């Protein structure tokens, strides 16, 4: 029995190793290729390192796209989206969790329609709406479709409902007004839920490509993913994979680092995001 157990454990370890290699190999080689001289592709002799370790690819990636600017744009896009979301989501979640009003369930269902018809598939009409509003090629255009979040409303409504109503009553007796109640009773007692929402929101918008690509034209406001696209299109013509991998790493590094720091929170947040 114990002999069998050891074999089984070894088998599981081998399987685990194989799966981990499949998942990690691409990242590993991205890093390697970005540090090799462009003239020495991996098929030339030594598969791991070239004749030298060089940052030349990074320098060239920086000539093609202004990554600093794209970073700033991504941060503004993601931060601006999240900031407004925090307000809209909190107010709606409080109303749906703790207030009674005519049409409450109907309005909640209307908001939940967002989960069933995600704005990603409505590219065509939303593109037109932005043009009609005269917002084409503005930062607002990037963010505005995401300012309302049904996922956030649902997540926080659930969290708010679990906060004892006695806390709100006590605050009211102490003379707190609505905004104070929301801020001190509800927001303060729902920080983990806010963190979960923020991680999901930030990581999904950081990665967004099609919408920013369609809705902007000026490099001054375009996020990292659109910069990466430019690098991809430049690389297409000559297969400069070194600089492409360098650029890719520049784009993905912050999320990978953020994940290493917040691993547990990420895993827990994403487990709640199936309804996104």
């Amino acid at each position, binding site marked *: 029995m114990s002999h069998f157990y050891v074999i089984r454990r070894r088998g599981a370890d081998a399987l685990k190793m194989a799966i981990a290699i499949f998942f*990690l190999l691409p*990242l590993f080689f991205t890093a390697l290729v970005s540090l090799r001289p462009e003239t020495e592709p991996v*098929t030339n002799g030594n598969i791991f390192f070239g004749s030298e370790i060089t940052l030349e690819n990074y320098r060239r990636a920086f000539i093609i796209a202004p990554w600093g600017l794209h970073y700033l744009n991504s941060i503004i896009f993601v931060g601006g989206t999240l900031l407004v979301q925090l307000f809209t989501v909190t107010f*709606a979640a409080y*109303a749906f969790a703790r*207030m009674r009003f005519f049409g409450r369930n109907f309005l909640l269902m209307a908001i939940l329609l967002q989960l069933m018809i995600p704005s990603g598939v409505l590219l065509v009409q939303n593109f037109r*709406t932005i043009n009609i509003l005269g917002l084409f090629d503005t930062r607002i255009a990037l963010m505005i479709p995401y300012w309302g979040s049904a996922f956030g409303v*649902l997540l926080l409504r659930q969290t708010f409902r679990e906060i004892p109503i006695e806390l709100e009553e006590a605050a009211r007796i102490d003379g707190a007004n609505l905004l104070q109640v929301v801020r001190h009773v509800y927001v303060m007692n729902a920080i983990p839920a806010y963190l979960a929402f923020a991680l999901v929101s930030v990581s999904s918008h950081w990665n967004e490509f*099609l919408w920013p690509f369609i809705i902007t034209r000026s490099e001054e406001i375009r996020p990292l993913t659109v910069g990466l696209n430019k690098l991809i299109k430049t690389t297409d013509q000559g297969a400069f994979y070194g600089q492409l991998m360098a650029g890719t790493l520049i784009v993905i590094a912050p*999320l990978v680092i953020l994940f290493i720091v917040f691993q547990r929170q990420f895993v827990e947040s994403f487990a709640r995001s199936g309804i996104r």
Partner: protein
Amino acid sequence: MARDALHRPPRKSLLSLLQPYILVAPTLILVLMFNVAPAFRTINDSLHKPARGLGAAGKPPEFVALGNFQDLFDDEHYMGKRFLRTLRNTIVFALATVGIGVPLGLLTALLLNRPQPLLGVWRFAVFYPSLLPLIGAASIWSFIFSDSIGLANAILKTFGHPGLNWLGDRNLVLLSVIIINIWKQAGYFMIFFLAGLQNIPRDIYESASLDGAGPAQQFAYLTLPLLRRTLLFVAVISFTFAFQTVEQLQALGEGGPADSANLLLYLIFQNISERRNWGYVNAMTIVLIGVVLSFTLSNFLLFERDETDR
């Protein structure tokens, strides 16, 4: 009783009556503007041919009923040919993601469910791809699959195989796109299975092994039935997500050659600014909405209702 007193101030001012609506309004208006209204406009525009010419001088859009859809499902039509091939690809892509990606997610969850050394590293290895931008993931794989200097062919060559044209051969491109998507998504699926496995009490396994049930039997008769809901949930979301996952094509040959790996939303994206195709683009969006809506709705009815009613 207490709750009623709380929300019924002594004198009902208009402001306090309107309060909940004011709080809900921003979200509601945004959802109406960017989700509900555009969905209805899509229906309307899918039933019309676009206006010719601009402004007052041009003809108004012509109502063609289901004409656009007829064209799309006509293999002889220039757009129908592209649409049908793309729709087929999208279904294959979605089914493959569910059929391979979901079991892989379950397998990794089973392997990583018990305490073990370096658990954080293992979890990182499987999960980090799902945090990457699709276009970045695709860019990484465009190197791995590249014809002359790619890693995949370098590995094949060490086994004496001449190598494959992963992104140029029309029979292989869709497969490459599927492999990338599975690599990208399996870690995300794993998370749901890990959560599901956490909810299974340990002691039922203990009593099962006392009764002489081996690991295979425990998996087949305990784990799988108890994970049924999670499995169904993950299968449904992965299928729906597959219909919205197209940005990788931007770095993988743009759906070509000859649409052999094109996907529905990407075909829509490619034609978004071509005026003459406006009706088709909207009709295609209707098909896309139909699929996504029916799956998210069934998902919602099956699972979310318990959560929201709780």
